[in-house]
């Protein structure tokens, strides 16, 4: 049975050129209204920034033009580019190995290589520093027998690059793997038949088809790196977000911070534009009838060992090391009689908030994704890009947006669970839109036309044909939102109802006074509850 893809993908750049008889039609008004209704609340951070900056425009302007601002923006951009490139460089061979070769234990590797996604990057950064830092566990282990005085510094650009790559590459891996699994092998067979070597075929036939997936995953990675604060501050990398946070922390300068955040939004549009260039213009759905033939698996032979070593190294660094540190600390903490009831109620609260956010995001994503997939146009592109605003901004900015509007416009809802869930949706909607859109693109519009030709109205077609076929993507989007919402921290601290503790806030409480061991058990619980949605994401495509 054909099922849809899981991939989060990125927005449409512009209307497709009309093929005879296949021109984009005008979208039904109801759909456009629905999509706009979703986009408007997502644009609240933009409104907030505009209002705050307007309070003192000259200060805002000066802030942007300080040397430090542009220098740090370049630094953060450089980090974003580096991390994106290395994440892609990791994801491409990994996806190939688990999809197209006879690597032993493919199923296991598929899950293991995607698992790092459940580790929040700030926890991951801290664990890596604990393991690999100057006073870290690994150095302690190595000091005695090997006399290793100091490991290469985990701090600074190198550390930030390494840690962020390890914890974000699964975003690219997910999109690329799903696309790779659906490629028509005939094209590659044609190339081989023309005498091209394996590598040449990959470069000239496979890679171009993977470009949209690479662009989609790379977009998420780049925006994540630009907006991240937790990891880079632990790793002492001087980033653009640090200036934003410093403005809040050090000088309570909301106007300066808002102007910097506005700059970040501008950077976001640049990144989105770049990604739009990777989109391809022909159809994703199969037009030839019959089932696609499965591609032949490449035999690795003696290459099996280096391949396994490669997968193992990635899994070791990104998964085994951090989790081992956590387990080690958890065991130490268990001795100190942890407060299990507190942890379990925090777990319930985490799951509740994240689950509601996932469900609502999945529903809200549908009109936006339908518009982008079925009726591409300038409006659809604008709507989709606007929904990325929350994702690209540091969470504190989105939190303050809702503080601002919450206290002025919706006071009864302020600091309720509803507002927190809304914040999560603003922050994470692009994850749901991308996955939904990708699976909609896999559903041929001919199917919808066939349903119309037998007398079903547009709503009935949506319900009976489009929705069931795209359901896989919607579920994947919800899973991705859940995974990310469950580890969110800054917005939770500011907006959650008092007494509503999530696992992230528990971890933060413990670690903010230096009791890192005490934060280990909630961290492990966090990883455990993230595992089922991740499993859902990874097992949708098993070639």
């Amino acid at each position, binding site marked *: 049975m054909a099922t849809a893809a899981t991939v989060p993908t990125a927005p449409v750049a512009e209307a497709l050129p009309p093929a005879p008889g296949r021109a984009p039609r005008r979208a039904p008004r109801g759909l456009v209204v629905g999509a706009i209704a979703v986009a408007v609340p997502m644009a609240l951070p933009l409104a907030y920034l505009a209002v705050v900056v307007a309070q003192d425009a000259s200060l805002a302007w000066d802030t942007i033009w300080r040397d430090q601002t542009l220098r740090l923006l370049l630094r953060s951009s450089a980090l974003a580019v580096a991390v994106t490139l290395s994440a892609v460089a990791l994801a491409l061979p990994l996806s190939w190995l688990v999809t197209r070769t006879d690597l032993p234990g493919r199923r296991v590797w598929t899950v293991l290589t995607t698992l790092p996604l459940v580790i929040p990057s700030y926890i991951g950064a801290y664990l890596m520093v604990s393991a690999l830092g100057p006073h870290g566990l690994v150095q302690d282990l190595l000091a005695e027998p090997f006399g290793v005085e100091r490991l290469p510094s985990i701090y600074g650009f190198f550390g930030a690059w390494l840690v962020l790559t390890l914890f974000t590459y699964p975003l690219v891996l997910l999109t690329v793997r799903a696309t790779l699994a659906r490629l028509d092998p005939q094209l590659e067979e044609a190339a081989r038949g023309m005498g091209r070597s394996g590598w040449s075929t990959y470069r000239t036939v496979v890679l171009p088809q993977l470009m949209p997936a690479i662009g989609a995953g790379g977009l998420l990675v780049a925006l994540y790196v630009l907006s991240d604060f937790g990891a880079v501050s632990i790793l002492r990398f001087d980033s653009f977000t640090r200036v934003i946070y410093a403005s809040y922390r050090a000088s309570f300068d909301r106007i300066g911070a808002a102007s910097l955040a506005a700059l970040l939004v501008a950077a976001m549009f640049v990144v989105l534009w770049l990604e739009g260039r990777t989109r391809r213009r022909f159809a994703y759905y199969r037009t030839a009838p019959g089932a696609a033939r499965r591609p032949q698996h490449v035999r690795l032979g003696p290459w099996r060992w280096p391949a396994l070593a490669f997968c193992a190294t990635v899994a070791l660094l990104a998964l085994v090391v951090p989790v081992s540190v956590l387990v080690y600390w958890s065991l130490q903490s268990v001795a100190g009689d942890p407060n299990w009831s507190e942890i379990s109620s925090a777990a319930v609260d985490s799951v509740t908030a994240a689950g509601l956010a996932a469900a609502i995001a999945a529903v809200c994503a549908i009109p936006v994704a339908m518009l982008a997939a079925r009726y591409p146009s300038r409006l659809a592109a604008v709507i989709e890009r606007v929904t990325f605003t929350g994702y690209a901004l540091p969470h504190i900015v989105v939190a303050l947006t809702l503080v601002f509007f919450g206290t002025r416009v919706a006071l009864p809802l302020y600091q309720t669970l509803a507002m927190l869930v809304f914040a999560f949706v603003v922050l994470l909607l692009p994850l749901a839109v991308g996955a939904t859109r990708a699976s909609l693109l896999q559903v041929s519009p001919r199917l919808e036309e066939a349903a119309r*030709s037998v007398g079903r109205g547009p709503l009935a077609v949506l319900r009976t044909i489009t929705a069931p*076929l795209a359901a896989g993507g919607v579920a994947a989007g919800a899973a991705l939102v859940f995974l990310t919402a469950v580890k969110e921290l800054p917005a939770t601290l500011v907006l959650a109802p008092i007494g509503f503790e999530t696992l992230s806030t528990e971890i933060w409480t413990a670690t903010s006074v230096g009791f890192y061991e005490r934060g280990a058990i909630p961290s492990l619980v966090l990883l455990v509850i993230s595992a089922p949605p991740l499993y859902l994401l990874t097992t949708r495509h098993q070639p």
Partner: protein
Amino acid sequence: MTLADPPTDRATLASTADRDVALRCTGVRKSYGPVRAVDGVDLEVEAGAICALLGPSGCGKTTMLRLIGGFERPDAGEIEIAGSAVAGARTFVPPQRRRVGMVFQDYALFPHFDVAGNVAYALGRKAAPGRVAEVLRLVGLESLGDRYPNELSGGQQQRVALARALAPTPKTILLDEPFSNLDAGLRARVRQETREILLAAGVTAVFVTHDQEEALSLADVVAVMRDGRVVQAGTPEHVYGRPSDHWVAGFLGDAVVLRGEAHDGSVTCELGRFAADGSFAGPVDVLIRPESISLSTMPGRQDTQEAVVLHREFYGHDQLVTVRLESGTEVRSRSIAFPAWHPGDQVRLAVDGPVNVLQVALR
């Protein structure tokens, strides 16, 4: 030079008064930006007839089909189905209300329903019991109801698509290159079966194809399209035997074209003198199909020419021989493969079939 619907063609479709017109298109236009996909099409199809829209890719035939189905809106013109307007200046009926069945080029079978489910879907909630089975029997798939589309062969998928389109007993059914995805060997047989199914169901059918063999063998009416217009419409015999211009002639089949001189109801060319329509006069082009040219070694007939065989192509059931006349003109002849001709043979050439006269094509 193109001719849209010369009066003679209309006449062959019988007089308008008591005919039951299932589909009528008048002056339909559709553009995509600067591209004029459909540029003023007039078409009439009688109830129960099978009409082929034939033309090369890019001629607008698929667009025309989609306009009839309601999947595109015309920029100008009117479309009437069973007497009521479905598209026009002030009307547009969406596809789900047109009661027109559609078979897509790639069949568009719903992958999440089995065969019976696909057909049942077309019937909606008001399905009469046994209708699904009835329709499947009509297309010969009654035992495959619980298979899924990806478990069927191409031919079987095509039949499911047909069954699904026919299930709600539409008056009209549209088919978009319905045989192009089938193996060549299968195609002929499936074509005939499809024709029988359509006739048995009593529906009016309009199908789109670029394959002239398909159009000629299947349709009651062929409408030849080029650059968004219908350049000739008529029975298969008519468009094949009496093409209205060089292009149609060449598109419908192989053609030998010779310069000739016409006056007084006859035309003279290198291969002889033949009867012609009185309206032609002066220099004209004479069009002869290769199967009208026969070769023999027998002397005697008055109207034969001497020629020498240049080369011969063998097709199993026939042969195509290229010969050179004394004047140097090369001509092709198609006949059964026996007697077999060889390059260098001296032959006598005669015209035994219909001859067409056309205006000289503008260079």
